[in-house]
């Protein structure tokens, strides 16, 4: 189990997301996704694949850390664990043990916008997996000893995260970058606040968000639409529709950043520089162009930023940074694109920061036909070598607001 660090979700309004707007012409044939909905609001997407005799059943709940009560951070994460620990008709851990006994495996992850659960197993048992998933959608038990045990597990994960320099740096970074929006914290949660979270608090969250009209069931594998439909109707059909869940983050929109924020923090471990920019929500039409920019700048050994940061200086024979790159934190609400570099020598911090700004500026300035543009681009929806069409917006997006910057410096 893990807390997803990076996840792109166009969740609200599942159907339009599944319909994939602007289907690009150059993508090779992709198998079709078949979708349907139940009267209780549950959305279902089925992708048939007969490559292997297996099926993956996933249930996505539109409930992430941004939906948590501010004083109980980690609530969403608790469900990633609790959902395996007993329901009205399944004893604790039997869900997992049954899937494993069939040769399959289960997993779950929480991020800022959603929590999802998956069961991967031989395809002939798809009905069983759907039955187990429907059971825990509404029948979870809230037993104090079980909750106390799982809280310990979640808190251990939080401590583990806090022990990793990168995660620690990112947490501090987000707290500076977001002043109002709940993306200021990560999905892992806060141990102290979880201690003060009661079974009743958890039950309340469950009753609000773990409802068919707030969930998406995804089935991929060697199955037919008819058999999935039959099982889904049988098990999920009788569940009553819930109330529309509130979205607390809607009242906490992040105000536009008007000045550069810069903070130097002495943490521990290796030195880290993080420089990031606010970007639009994952569903924004500019996101593809931005992802392309992120890819060119900071994904893969050959990307510009990585090359620049890791190139050996001919004089000193040293590289600016030990490693670096750029990550996109794209969410339902406006996210961030963050350049990261790790270094051992604190004297490198300033030149690294300068290099990051410079590479971003070069990209924003470039015009069609400039020397680097000619590099063919692996656009997931485009043709190699094609220049992204929305360069102006791309530049605007990158330049919008001011960068929030954080350095976590550290010497042993």
């Amino acid at each position, binding site marked *: 189990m893990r807390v997803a660090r990076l996840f792109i979700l166009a969740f609200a309004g599942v159907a339009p997301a599944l319909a994939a707007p602007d289907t690009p012409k150059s*993508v*090779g*044939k*992709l*198998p079709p996704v078949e979708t349907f909905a139940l009267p209780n609001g549950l959305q279902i997407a089925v992708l048939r*694949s007969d*490559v*292997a*005799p*297996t099926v993956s059943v996933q249930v996505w709940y539109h409930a992430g850390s941004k939906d948590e009560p501010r004083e109980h951070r980690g609530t969403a994460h608790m469900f990633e664990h609790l959902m395996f620990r*007993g329901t*009205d*008709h*399944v*004893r604790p851990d*039997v869900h997992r*043990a*049954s899937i*494993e*006994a*069939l*040769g*399959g*495996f289960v997993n779950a992850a929480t991020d800022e916008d959603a929590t999802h659960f998956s069961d*991967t*197993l*031989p*395809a*002939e*048992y798809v*009905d*069983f997996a759907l*039955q*187990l998933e429907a*059971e825990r959608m509404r029948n979870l*038990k809230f*037993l104090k000893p079980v909750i106390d045990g799982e809280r310990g597990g979640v808190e251990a994960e939080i401590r583990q995260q806090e022990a990793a320099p990168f995660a620690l740096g990112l947490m501090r970074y987000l707290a500076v970058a977001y002043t109002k929006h709940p993306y200021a914290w990560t999905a892992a949660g806060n141990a102290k606040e979880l201690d003060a979270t009661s079974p009743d608090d958890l039950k309340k969250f469950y009753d609000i968000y773990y409802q068919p009209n707030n969930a998406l069931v995804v089935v991929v594998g060697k199955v037919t639409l008819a058999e999935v439909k039959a099982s889904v109707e049988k098990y999920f059909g009788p569940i009553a529709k819930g109330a529309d869940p509130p979205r607390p983050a809607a009242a906490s929109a992040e105000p536009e950043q008007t000045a550069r924020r810069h903070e130097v923090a002495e943490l521990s471990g290796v030195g880290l520089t993080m420089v990031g920019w606010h970007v639009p929500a994952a569903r924004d039409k500019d996101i593809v162009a931005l992802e392309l920019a992120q890819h060119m700048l900071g*994904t*893969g*050994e*050959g*990307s510009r930023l990585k*090359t620049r940061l890791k190139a050996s200086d001919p004089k*000193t*024979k*040293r590289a600016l940074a030990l490693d670096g790159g750029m990550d996109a934190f794209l969410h339902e609400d406006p996210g961030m694109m963050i350049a990261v570099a790790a270094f*051992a*020598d604190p*004297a490198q911090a300033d030149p690294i920061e300068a290099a990051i700004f410079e590479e971003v500026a070069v990209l924003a300035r470039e015009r069609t036909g400039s020397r680097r543009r000619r*590099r*063919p*681009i*692996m656009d*997931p929806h485009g043709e*190699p070598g094609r220049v992204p069409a929305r360069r102006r917006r791309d530049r605007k997006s990158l330049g919008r607001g001011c960068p929030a910057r954080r350095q976590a410096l550290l010497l042993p």
Partner: protein
Amino acid sequence: MMRTLLVIAVVAACGPKSAPAPLPMLPGDGDTHVAKPPPPKPPPPVDPWTGRELIGFPQIKPPGPVELPKIEEYKLGNGLQVYVVKNSRLPLVAMQLAVRAGRMHEPRARLGVAELAADMLVKGTRKRDATALAKAIDTVGGTIAADSTFEATMLSCSVMSRNAGTCFELLSDMVTQPTFPDAELAKLRDALIAKAQQRLDDPGTLASAHALNLLWGNDHVRGWVNSEQSLSSIRRDDIVAWHRSWFVPGNAMLVITGDVDPRALRGDVERVFGAWRKAPVPPTPTYPEPGLSGTRIRLVDRPGLTQTQVRIAQFGIKHDDARFFDTLVWNHALGGSGGNSRLARALRADGKPYVAVSSFDRNIDRGAFVVSAVTRNNDAIATTRLLLGEIARMAKDGPTAEEIAAAIIGITGGYGLRFQSTADFGASIVTAELHGYGQEYLTNFPVAVGHVSLADAKRAAAEILSTKAYVVVLLGDAKDLEPALTKEGWRYEKMAFTDPVSAPYVPPEVPVDAKAVASAAKLIEDALAAKGGKARLSALKAFKLVGSGMTTIAGQSVPIEIARIAVLPDKMRLDATVKPPRAPRDIEFSVAVTEKAGWQRGPNGPNGDYTVVEMAGDALTTAAFERWREPELILLKASQPGAKLTPLADDTVDGKPCAVIKLRSPFGSIDVTLYIDKKTKLLSRMTFGDGGSIENDDFSDYRDVGGLKIAYKRSTNGGGRSTTLDLKAVDLDPKVDPTLFDKPAK
């Protein structure tokens, strides 16, 4: 009420200690030794699920064959075996190139060469350097990787099918024309050395390595574990030689899966890989299997650990053993199915909150069967006993019919997961074909598992599991474990966690015969003559060498200047100036030794202060050894009457053949090994081992100075550091200020 009592109890615990009882208690006084009535049992917790209708396990279907697309198979003229599987669901293609060159093929003197060579394959070819390779694959959004296992090196490449040509080109480039650039080698070797060192911080990995070493011994490839010593001895020419002998088409297979047209593809395969030059496949090294009678226990002491790693290992089976499927089944029941397995259940039933698993190698030759667990220190012996008991029970009674049924469901159900992605399918073909199994094996695997009967599984468990011949490794804090082991009467060998796992490699000594010693002496004579002659060297009274280069400090490469002054016979001084870029000032180090004393001077704290320390004990011995092994004079030491010389097997330094001679030093177990270039007769390398690590000094660019040949290029490797130096000035018999050797005040 409860709360009040608790508060009182806490207050009482925090209050002053009560005064001792005025009279000593005797047995029979009070109730200390009186049998108490059993405390009332707490009511059993209410099971919230009692009486409920629970969701039951689904109806199980018998395992059948897996429907797989057809595998097309052909062999190129150069011997390369090719497998192609068409699967057009997604516009992707995955290629895997497996070469039978893994850890099992490594020479003992170069453990780690398979992994290092694999890592180096993506670091440069004749057409592309490391960056160009990365860019070539990045620009098509693909991935490329190389890795090595016990049996093979695997190169893999995945791209969208329209870019299949990129994969062809890069894979063939990497496998046939790698350049193994030195600069990349140094980085990757350091990374592997760091990994070997990290093993010390990972109790689980270290315990497993010890278990295999204890089981297979130091004369079998399965017992060898790479180390800083073995890794730092790997040079570029070793990797080139490794690649040249094993990376031949007849020793490799290419598997292509995905959205391809097999017929059209054949032309591309022939064109790209047909050019790979045919060469004979070397025989796979074989080692006699060690026997094992009785049990052996090794305690690996890691002070401070609160948990103990337990490993129980014995010999397993080969993949082609007729009992392979039976073994899959009984092992699934014993410890191969996580929390449901017998070992885990037995630990739980005993109230031990630990996990235990069992596994066995699936290799072409016989591997090991290993049980692993982690326990608290005070529970380690009891846990080991419990695990041994479960192994014995499985050997005696075998699995139950229910366990067999569960194992068949679990193994066959999990089998299908191997074919989920295009690359997974390719990997499954490689794994099967490496052992000579084809499509039928892959398709009917579940059927074969389903046929395992109770009698088969019982017989296999009884035959394979030994209750007498096995090894046990306990890795934990000896302070906690030794009393328990002694109490138990278990005999054990003890090692420190820092000790090398497998015995360090010692080059085989050519049997000492007078003729060999004479030839070694002759080699030294020739080397002395090449150096400028014994008379000229003996006449030297002093010298000064000044050079500059780079060295590693705290993992960083920094510029360094060094001056080395010797006044014979016994005075020596070394001054080093390190110039860290951006640092406010240079850092100086000095060391000086005279006949019986020595001192060193170095920075103390960040303020630019220096301290001078008088050398004593080990430091003085180390300095004396350094003086003894002075490279300019070592040949004189080797030519002295009584010098103990042992000729070793020839080797190469940077591709040049060298004669190798070991020279016994007067410093206990430390010897130096001299590599003398067969052509020039000049000293190319000098090494010495110190415990687990080994230091190498390499010499090249010899120039004539005052009748002596002096190496102007020098490099030192070892202990995670490397230094390269270019000499700038060489002064023979200079005037040396005698006060240079006096200890300075600050």
